[in-house]
C-alpha cells in the first residue's frame, strides 16, 4: 500500500470524526447523571437500570425487533426467488421489471406510507374488523424491503456462470438440488447482505411505519413522540447498547471472514 499524504490523512480524520463523534457524544451522555444533554454532571448507570424497567420502551424495542427479523426473512426469501425469475427473463421484460422495482426506492417514503395506509383503510372497510397493527406493519416493511433484495441478488446471479447450473443438471441433480447445492451457495453472500440491509432499514424506518402502525408502536415512533417533553436519556442508553451489539456482530463476522480467507490461502 502506498503511504498516505498528509492531506489524505486529514481528510480521513475529518470524515470519520463527522461519522463517529455524534455517537461518541451520545454514549458519553448515556452515563450522565442529570437529564441534561449539554452539561455532564457525573457518572451513573441509572439510565441503563431504568431502561430495563421501562416497559413502554422495551415493548417498542421488542416490536421493532420482531418486525425487523420477520420482514427481513420474508423479504429475503421472496426477493431471492424474484431475482432468479428476473434473471432468466428476456432483456426487455427484465428492464421493465427492474425499473418498476426501482419506483418504491426512488419514491419519497411519505408517498409509500400514505398510499399503503389508504390501501389498508380501504381493506379495513371492505373486510371489517381490526387489521391495523402488526400485520399491516409486516406487509409494509416487506414491501419496502423487497427492492433492496432484488437489487442486491440480481447482479450476483448475473455474475454467476449459467453453465454451472447446467453442469449440475448434467451430473444428475434435479433442478431443486441444483438450486440448493450450486446456485444458492454461489449467491449466498448477496442474500446475507440483503438480509442485513433489510434488517437495518426495517429497524430504522419511521415514516412508513407511522402510517401503517395502527395502535402498535415501534421504537422510532416511541422516541419521536417524546419530543414535546424531552427525549429521555434512557434512549441514549438503549442506542449505546444497540451500537455496541452491532459493532461486535460486525467485528465477529469480519474476524471469521479473515480467518476463513487465511485458511483458503494456506490450502492453496
Amino acid at each position, binding site marked *: 500500500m502506498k503511504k498516505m499524504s498528509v492531506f489524505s490523512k486529514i481528510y480521513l480524520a475529518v470524515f470519520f470524526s463527522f461519522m463517529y463523534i455524534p455517537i461518541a457524544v451520545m454514549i458519553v451522555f448515556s452515563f450522565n447523571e442529570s*437529564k441534561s*444533554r449539554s452539561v455532564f454532571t457525573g457518572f451513573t448507570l441509572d439510565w441503563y437500570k431504568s431502561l430495563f424497567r421501562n416497559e413502554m420502551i422495551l415493548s417498542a424495542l421488542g416490536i421493532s425487533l420482531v418486525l425487523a427479523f420477520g420482514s427481513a426473512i420474508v423479504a429475503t426469501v421472496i426477493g431471492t426467488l424474484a431475482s432468479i425469475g428476473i434473471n432468466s427473463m428476456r432483456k426487455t421484460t427484465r428492464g421493465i421489471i427492474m425499473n418498476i422495482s426501482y419506483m418504491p426506492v426512488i419514491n419519497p417514503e411519505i408517498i409509500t406510507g400514505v398510499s399503503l395506509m389508504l390501501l389498508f383503510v380501504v381493506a379495513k372497510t371492505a373486510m371489517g374488523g381490526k387489521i391495523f397493527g402488526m400485520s399491516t406493519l409486516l406487509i409494509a416493511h416487506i414491501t419496502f424491503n423487497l427492492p433492496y433484495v432484488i437489487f442486491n441478488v440480481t447482479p450476483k446471479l448475473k455474475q454467476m456462470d449459467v453453465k454451472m447450473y447446467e453442469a449440475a443438471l448434467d451430473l444428475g441433480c434435479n433442478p431443486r438440488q441444483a438450486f440448493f447445492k450450486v446456485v444458492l451457495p454461489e449467491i449466498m453472500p448477496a442474500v446475507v447482505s440483503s438480509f442485513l440491509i433489510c434488517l437495518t432499514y426495517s429497524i430504522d424506518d419511521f415514516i412508513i411505519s407511522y402510517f401503517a402502525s395502527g395502535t402498535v408502536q415501534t421504537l422510532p415512533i416511541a422516541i419521536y*413522540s417524546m*419530543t414535546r417533553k424531552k427525549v429521555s436519556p434512557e434512549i441514549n442508553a438503549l442506542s449505546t447498547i444497540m451500537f455496541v451489539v452491532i459493532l461486535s456482530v460486525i467485528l465477529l463476522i469480519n474476524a471469521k471472514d479473515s480467518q476463513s480467507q487465511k485458511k483458503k490461502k494456506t490450502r492453496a
Partner: protein
Amino acid sequence: MISALLALVLTAMLPMVSAAAAETKSDYNYTRFKGAGVTLNVYNWGLYISDGSDGAADVVKDFEELTGIKVNYTTYDTNESMYAKIKSGGADYDVIIPSDYMIGKMAQEGMLAELNFDNIPNYKMIGDQYKGLAYDSDEKYSVPYTWGVVGVVYNTTMVDGEVDSWDILWDAAYSGNVLMFNNSRDAFAIAAKKLGLSLNPSSQKEIDEIAAELKKQKPIVQAYVMDEIFDKMTGGEAALAPYYAGDAITMIEDNPDLAFAIPKEGTNYFVDAMCIPKGSTNKEAAEMFINYMCETEVALANCEFIGYSTPQVEAVKLLPEELANSPIMYPSEEVLENTEVFEVLPEEINTAMDAAWSSMKAHEEGGSGWIIPVLMLIAVAVIILSIWRKNVRKKRDDY
C-alpha cells in the same frame, strides 16, 4: 380530638397507600373486567404519565394488575398528528388525551363519544374551575388531566431586571438569545397577546397583524424550537424562551439561575383532558381507566412525574408545600383571570394561520432566495454534463 386522631392515622397510612396503588380507597369496582381479556388502546403525549422511572409509581402497570385489563400504551408528539391518525381511520383507540382546542374540534366533527359519568365517579374530585370550559361547555366529552399556563422562562444571570411583559421577547438587546415556539398556534398566541388581541384570531386582518409582529421578531430569534428549549435554557445557551409552566419547573430544578414569569398582557391557559373516541369497543373499560387516572394517589403520582398542574383537588392538597403554593404551578386568581383558552378556529382561519406561519418561517431578511434557483441550475448542469460525457464515451467505445 377524634378527628385529630383520625388525621394522624390517615397520615400514617398515606405512604402505604401510595406504595400500593392497588389499595385504592374508593369502593369502585375495578375488578369487573378481570379475566375478560380486554385490551385498552391508550394514546397519550410522550412522557406524559408516571412510568415507574426514578422510583415513581408505574401507573399503567398498576392499573393492569388491579383490573386485569391489558393496556396497549402508545404515545404521540402533537395534537395534530394524533388527530390525523384517528381521522384517517388508521387506528382505533379507546382513550386519548388531547388539548383543549383539539377536543373542541374533534367534538365538533363527531369524533368523540359521550362519556357515561356513572362510570367515572372520581369526576367529582376535579375542581369546578376546570369543568365546562369553552371546548366542552356541556361537560359531555372530557375529563381534565393536566393544566397549565404559558409564560417566559428566563436566565436571571443574562436578563436584567424584572420580566413582566411579552415585549421582552422582541427586545433587540437580547438579539440571538431568544427562543420561540416552533408551532403556529403557540407562537401566534404570544404575538397576539403582545398586541392585545385575542389568541383566537377571528379575521384575516388579525392574522396578518400577528404574522407581521412575528416577522418583526424573527431577526432576534436564535431558533424556533420545542423540546430543545430544555437543553438550551438549562445550558445557558439562550436567555429567554416562552414555554409551558410545568416544564419550566423541571428546567428550574436543573438550573437554579432560571426563573419563570407570566406576562401582564395575559397568556394562554391550557387543559389536556381525557376523552374516548367514537368507535371505541371497550367504552366501559376506557371509562374505568379514566376514573383510575383521577384517583388521588394516581393523579398525585402523575402530577409529580410530569410536572404539570393537576386539576384533581384532593391531589393538590397532598402536594409538597413548595409545589402547591408555587406561583408557577398554581398561579393566583388574578393571574388566571387574565388568561384565555384556545378555541376551535374556523377552517379558513386555521388555513390562513398555517399559511402565514410558513411564509413567516420561509421569509429571509437578507434575501437569500436566489440560492435555490442557482442550486437547481447547477444540478441541471451537472446532469447534462454527465449525460454528455456518457454519450461521448459511448461513441468512443463504439469505434
